[in-house]
């Protein structure tokens, strides 16, 4: 079984972002970038399936400017076998990403594609579902547990839904998007980071894949949200109860 796993280069989750002066974008200059946390969970799950003898090859895919290759190297250092970068400076929206992924699926013929449920920059939560729709494959979104049937023809997925958990049986091939509790991703060891440098990394472009990636949504402007007014410190529980009851009137 071959697994494609999608990895996106995003602003690190600890960074407080800033909107640029002309309100056209978020300022990305000199900002720490990392692999999207949900994609780390995706890579980890693919590696565990390989270690369990279910998968045979794990291919990490990223898209965007040339430095997205760094994120692929991170996946390779974690243990992925090889990488594919679809290089472009055009802003890629989820529909375009899914179309590019669908082309790679045609070429690579994986049995499973794992994506993070959401990227923490655009917060769209779409790409996996769109890819499943384009390919006509089953989808298991917000997955917290995967179990393969002995013949590997069905995949039982436990999903995180609003009120608890839901279980689906998916026909293979399938699309999985990861939720928080699927696993805890490993750190890459130094020897593995060195080894990752010599793993193969193939390059493609939207043109080479024949996909029109022109953005469908035009960003008119970006604003910072209005700040909250500063609050007060209370001395003790009695003062807190008094404030909530008599000032804020919420209890």
């Amino acid at each position, binding site marked *: 079984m071959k697994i494609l796993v999608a990895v996106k280069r995003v*602003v690190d*989750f600890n960074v*407080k*972002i800033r*909107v640029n002066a002309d309100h056209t974008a*978020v300022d990305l200059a000199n900002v720490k970038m990392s692999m999207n946390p949900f994609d780390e969970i995706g890579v980890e799950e693919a590696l565990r399936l390989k270690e369990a003898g279910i998968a045979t090859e794990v291919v990490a895919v990223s898209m965007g400017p040339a430095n997205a290759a760094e994120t692929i190297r991170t996946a390779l250092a974690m243990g992925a076998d090889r990488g594919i970068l679809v290089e472009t400076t055009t802003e890629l929206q*989820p*529909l375009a990403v899914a179309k590019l992924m669908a082309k790679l699926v045609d070429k690579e013929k994986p049995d499973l594609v794992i994506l993070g449920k*959401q990227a*923490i*920059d*655009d*917060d*769209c*939560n*779409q*790409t996996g*579902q*769109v890819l499943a*729709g*384009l390919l006509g*494959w089953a*989808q298991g*979104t917000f997955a917290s547990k995967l179990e393969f049937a002995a013949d590997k023809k069905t995949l039982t997925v436990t999903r*995180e*839904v*609003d*009120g*608890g*958990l*839901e*279980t*689906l*049986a*998916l026909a293979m091939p399938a699309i999985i998007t990861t*939720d*928080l*509790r699927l696993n805890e991703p490993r750190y890459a060891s130094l020897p593995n980071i060195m080894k990752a440098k010599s793993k193969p990394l193939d390059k493609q472009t939207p043109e080479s894949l024949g996909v029109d990636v022109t*953005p*469908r*949504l*035009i*960003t008119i*402007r*970006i604003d910072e*949200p209005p700040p*909250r*007014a500063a*609050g*007060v*410190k*209370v001395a*003790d*529980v009695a003062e*807190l*109860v008094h404030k*909530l009851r008599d000032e*804020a009137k*919420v*209890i």
Partner: protein
Amino acid sequence: MSILVVAEHDGKQIKAATLHAVTAATKLNAAVTLLLCGAGSGAVAESAAKIAGVAEVLVAEVADLDNGMAESMAPLLAHLAKGYSHIVVTATAFGKNILPRASALLDVQQISEVIEIKSADSFVRPIYAGNALATVKSNDKIKLLSIRMTAFEPAAVSGGSAAVKKLAAGDLGAVAQKLSQFKGASLSKSERPELTSAKIVVSGGRGMQNGENFKLLDALADKLGAAVGASRAAVDAGFVPNEYQVGQTGKVVAPELYVAVGISGAIQHLAGMKDSKVIVAINKDVDAPIFQVADYGLVADLFTAIPALTAAIKK
């Protein structure tokens, strides 16, 4: 222009989430149709027809559409789409699962988590965990929107008188599918209000130290009639299940009162609660970033403060 809102229901009643989507849809100033799918649709159609602002209710009560499976719902939406200018869902687990798949079939770029409708084709949505707001314009022929429920008031459940139309099996498109099969759900049973619609939310973070200590918050929540939530750190540490998670990657809440207990206030948590009306933070670390968004901050050990607070509140 006409708007299709995809409803969520449990076969007995329409879920509160859908009422917020109806309000968002009415802001587009066009007739609103509410779509009910799967088992029990017919039973809830009558009450759905009374929701203020709904002009028509469509009922698609066929077994293929039970359990809101994306593989069936997406072709249905793609089939119905030609009659509408916008399709609207609430950004719940259900809405997030089905709408992007429909967008693939329609070749449309969906707009996620809309918090403001500027015009028929321009919308505001949060990015970077709500640390920036993007105003975007769609040039697609049909607009697919998921709306953030806390940004729109719920529509009134009475006052409407919509026409109810039953869709025949032939009107549904290719909803029969063998790709996926629903096996079951284990939904947490609770006497408490739902996290996303509760007036008061009490949330715990890593400072709770373990799952057992969440009982302290349960006792406080019971006194206040509140829902219990958690930070991602508390979920990550295994204290409570993921459905408790408030934040960028969990649920977004905006109650009248949010009490953050032992929560440091990571960016991704603030994203899920900073639109609450009143925020209380209880944390022993005076430098915790949560105090920067709190209306009332109490620097104290939660293990003494929470029992004292619970005792001080009259039921």
